[in-house]
């Protein structure tokens, strides 16, 4: 089990937490990993807090219970930190990555987090500028790769671009925007 990385995504209904987990799962699979991606099983409502999950491992994954102690947490909406315990179950050496304009030290203070590593990036700003609307999920994938070194950014981008091309066949401009946004977040994420 130690070789399995467990990730929890926090977002609000409509922000793409589920899509991000699915895209990350597919990207990891294309890089030869064993994967799982699943949403929190419940009714989804626009704007309500939601979570989704990934398991990524070099070994076959047989476990099917939910993830309670993720080593990586990604927060798509900083206002969730006021209402949801986003660090629940995060171990002392865990990593939390937040979409916010705040610096990591301020987020650490707000979360009263002693250990672990905190990363921040303005994924909302990046998505508004490069994709044309606020969908922070794909840039956060870039931040995740930088913060954790889970896989090579170029390989991940190649796979995600192919997946998005399929999904948005009628809107090619969205594909390039997403790819650029992932790359920008990869460059701009900061941590401590």
């Amino acid at each position, binding site marked *: *089990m130690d070789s399995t990385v467990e990730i929890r995504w926090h977002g609000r209904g409509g922000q793409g937490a589920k899509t991000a987990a699915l895209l990350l799962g597919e990207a990891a699979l294309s890089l030869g990993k064993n994967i799982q991606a*699943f949403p929190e099983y419940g009714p989804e409502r626009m704007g309500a807090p939601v979570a989704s999950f990934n398991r990524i491992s070099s070994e076959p994954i047989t476990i099917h219970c939910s993830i309670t102690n993720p080593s990586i947490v990604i927060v798509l909406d900083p206002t969730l930190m006021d209402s949801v315990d986003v660090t629940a179950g995060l171990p002392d050496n865990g990593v939390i990555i937040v979409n916010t304009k705040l610096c990591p030290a301020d987020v650490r203070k707000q979360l009263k987090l002693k250990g672990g590593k905190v990363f921040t990036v303005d994924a909302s700003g990046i998505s508004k500028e490069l994709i044309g609307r606020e969908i922070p999920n794909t840039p956060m994938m870039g931040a995740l790769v930088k913060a954790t070194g889970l896989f090579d950014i170029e390989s991940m981008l190649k796979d995600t671009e192919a997946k998005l091309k399929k999904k948005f066949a009628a809107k090619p401009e969205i594909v390039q925007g997403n790819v650029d946004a992932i790359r920008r977040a990869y460059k701009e994420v900061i941590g401590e």
Partner: protein
Amino acid sequence: MSKIVAKTGNEAMAEAMRQINPDVVAAYPITPATEIVMIFAKYVADGLVDTNFVAVESEHSAMSACVGASAAGVRVMTGTSSQGLCLMYEILPIAAALRLPIVMCDVNRAISGPINIHCDHSDTMAARDFGWLQIFSENSQEAYDSLIQAIRIAEDPRVHLPTMVTTDGFIISHCLDKIEILDDKDVTAFIGQDRKANNRLLDLKNPTSVGLLDLQDYYFEHRVPVAQAMKDSKKVILEVADEFAKKFGRKYGLIEEYKLADAEVAIVALGSTCGTAKVVIDELRAKGVKAGMLKIRVFRPFPAEEIVKALSNVKALAVLDRSDTWSAQGGQVFTEIRSAFYEAAKKPKITNFIYGLGGREIDLPQLHTVFESLKNIDKQPVVQYLGVRE
């Protein structure tokens, strides 16, 4: 060429249906099985399959349409879950008695009430006595592989019974997982192009009446062959599994033994829980505990002899049921296993845990609790509810 892809359980089942390319699909949507039929309906609309898709107004009608189409001699599939399966109950035994090889994707979900959309095995277990073969899946790969095998099993002249292949609602149906998808041509070759025409009940050249009144004089004779076919199907399931393994490399049986050979304590489970239990057993083995598991893949026909043989050297056994018979004597799997051991010379002490109703989480600590209880099996009640608040 086969390919490795990421698919949810529902996507995997829809993909198998595309490759099977059934002549008729009649279905009505219900969570968490909706996607299977939704994805398949898109394949129909996009012209990727030749299927005549019948959009019906209820599951009762869906199964009725399946019975009519299958009686006409064509390959028929459907998909449903929970209350949808319950609405089919009236027609399910008719499909079996008419010996119609309909294949169903069934996503295990709790039944009302209260209303609950999450996984347990109550819907499928309540259908265990309707003459359908029942195959459970631990993950998407097994669901995909078993659905392809189910066509061959159901249509075999020695069986000729309807068959359901199940996944666990949300846990498998909505979990993206790595799976190997076979080449379209290999699937077509494996299942054969068409259902055997001579099996049709409705034939314009040889008109017969079907589904007639059948009272004291012949009804009994028309029911007993279903039991015989169910008995004979065990051999066919294994033959098809062997051929599948030879061609595609993945081996299946009626049961799967996980570290059972020298096990002193063991559990029996079905479906996705078996995957989680494998992790627990590995952890226990690392500590020197001789723990093992028997996974039941095929629940109908019930592999009684195989189970008794595989568990005869175990000292203490916990049977995990994700459903209840409400008999106050334990769940469906437990009662059948205990009955199977009645004549056995060597048998374990057996206790029953009913767990996970309505999607209640089954995690590693709870499964450790189950194994822990086996240390004092003499003090365990016959039946207990795992993880329920008092």
